[in-house]
């Protein structure tokens, strides 16, 4: 669309699985008649001959010959609709609705405004009650959110909007500052990607105890009011305040993820951190007396128990052999008993442990050589160390960690290196379990400012 604005006629090609998304996105960006051409889906693994046959076939949406459609897209004169200018203000419906409670429950679900579990109906009385949880003015703008940053327009929302959604999730007013903090980040809980993103929200500081969050036995389970409803509110508000979560349009996760129901909302077990270890928020520039919520984004978690090795060695092996959608960053959730064992083996801080893991974890050869065509060519020419790595064979573990921090392509040279291994301590010490996953730490924000 940016190219069309420059006066260059364009034929975007999209696979049929993304028809609704492509057309919706074009409409939301101001070009509802964009001439999108469609191919069958999927295309990724087709042979060259099969791809050529697609060109010789028909557009599955219009039924017209595909290449004729493409040529038409850039040559056929524009219609009056395609030349339209002006401004359109999308409607979000009336400010209130009236019906029986039973019908309204159905109404919110049918219009994709809930998570399809019963909600607390947001009457004005309930919303006023929720607003008592913050000193901020109900009309204050809290932030902007998109179903997928860069791909969809950002919606804005006020404290009152967030309160309505917090009521629907069943939250108490004292949980409202944490919900406002999450909303203020602008990060949607249900990011639209075919890969089915999940989120994790970790609360730190005195606020955890003030609202009686669970960071002991079953902290990630359905055993606590605050953990449950703060996490749920983030998902519901992401639908209603960020325009996310319409399958096929603003949500494309092919399998989806159950994590989206609650976003693994929990708190860190700060009082059981080993000596010298610091709470998550303190490691990211906050004071111990600050209350914060930190966000992780990823896809999956693995539950690991004792395998006959000290935990620091076990986690190193796991880092070497674990693979997932994301192979460049991980999160660790350590029960306090596991953290104590790591500390007992000489790791006086999380930073020291992280450095050890990066130094000692390796990469399986099959994974190492993926997307390393240049290094493979050098290896075949005898250039070291690649030649030695290649000689190790396809089943070897190459002595290069996947978790050495690297800047994203195109990032400014002086920008901070991204976190590749982040960890929290949490759990009820009933056994020496730990969780490892492909979640990346994305930031920490203040809860105190929303009290």
């Amino acid at each position, binding site marked *: 669309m940016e190219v069309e604005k420059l006066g260059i006629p364009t034929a975007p090609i999209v696979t049929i699985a993304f028809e609704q998304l492509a057309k919706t996105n074009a409409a939301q960006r101001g070009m509802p008649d964009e001439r999108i051409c469609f191919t069958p889906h999927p*295309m990724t693994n087709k042979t060259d001959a099969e791809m050529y046959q697609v060109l010789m076939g028909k557009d599955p949406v219009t039924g017209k010959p595909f290449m004729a459609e493409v040529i038409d897209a850039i040559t056929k004169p524009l219609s009056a609709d395609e030349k339209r200018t002006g401004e359109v203000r999308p409607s979000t419906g009336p400010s209130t609705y009236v019906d029986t409670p039973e019908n309204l429950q159905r109404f919110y679900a049918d219009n994709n405004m809930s998570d399809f579990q019963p909600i607390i109906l947001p009457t004005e009385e309930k919303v006023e009650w929720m607003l008592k949880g913050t000193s901020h003015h109900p009309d204050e703008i809290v932030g902007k959110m998109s179903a997928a940053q860069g791909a969809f327009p950002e919606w804005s929302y006020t404290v009152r909007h967030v309160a309505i959604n917090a009521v629907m999730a069943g939250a108490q007013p004292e949980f409202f500052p944490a919900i406002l903090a999450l909303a203020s980040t602008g990060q949607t809980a249900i990011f639209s990607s075919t890969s089915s993103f999940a989120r994790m929200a970790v609360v730190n500081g005195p606020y955890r105890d003030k609202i009686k969050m669970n960071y002991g036995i079953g902290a990630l389970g359905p055993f606590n009011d605050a953990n449950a409803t703060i996490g749920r509110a983030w998902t519901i508000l992401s639908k209603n305040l960020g325009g996310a979560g319409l399958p096929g349009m603003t949500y494309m996760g092919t399998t989806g993820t159950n994590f989206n129901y609650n976003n693994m909302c929990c708190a860190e077990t700060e009082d059981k951190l080993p000596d010298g270890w610091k709470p998550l928020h303190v490691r990211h520039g906050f004071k111990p007396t600050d209350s914060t919520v930190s966000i992780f984004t990823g896809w999956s978690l693995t539950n690991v128990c004792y395998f006959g090795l000290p935990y620091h060695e076990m986690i190193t092996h796991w880092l070497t052999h674990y693979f997932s959608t994301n192979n460049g960053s991980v999160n660790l959730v350590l029960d306090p008993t596991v953290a104590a064992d790591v500390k007992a083996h000489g790791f006086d801080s999380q930073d020291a442990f992280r450095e050890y893991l990066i130094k000692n974890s390796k990469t399986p050869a099959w994974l190492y050589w993926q997307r390393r065509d240049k290094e493979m060519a050098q290896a075949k020419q005898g250039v070291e160390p690649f030649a030695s790595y290649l000689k190790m064979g396809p089943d070897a573990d190459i002595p290069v960690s996947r978790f050495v921090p690297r800047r994203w392509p195109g990032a400014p040279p002086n920008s901070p290196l991204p976190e590749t291994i982040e960890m929290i301590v949490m759990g009820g010490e009933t056994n020496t379990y730990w969780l490892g996953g492909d979640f990346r730490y994305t930031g920490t924000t203040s809860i105190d400012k929303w009290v």
Partner: protein
Amino acid sequence: MKINRRKLLSLIGISPAVLAGVPTFAEPAKKNGGRGSVDTGKIEVLNPKGLPPAIQLVPMAPRVASLDGKTIYLVSDGFAGAHRFLNQMAIWFQKNMPSVHTIYKLKAGGLAGDDPKLWAEIKANGVAMIMAYGH
């Protein structure tokens, strides 16, 4: 599930909006001067939706009358397989419209990122762009 133009326009508010949240059966509240229960068994509740931005309609670029002797850019957004698909398209042009010159480019910035440098090149040297696979 297909999406027609009427529904599409409804998404941006040109006709009654669907995407942004239009009731399927609950009625908008009438002026009642009160709060909470408005009729026996009925209650008044608040719309939880935020504020979508206004949409500026963007006119499409004027089309090219003829491609004869012109240059078209075939641009990959980096999605897996897109470069091979566009390579086949270049072959199709050679076979079926040999007077059209095609240039292949990989867009910088990944799937959703902007690439002003490439757009400027296309503006200077080409007449149109075909991009695959956007989604």
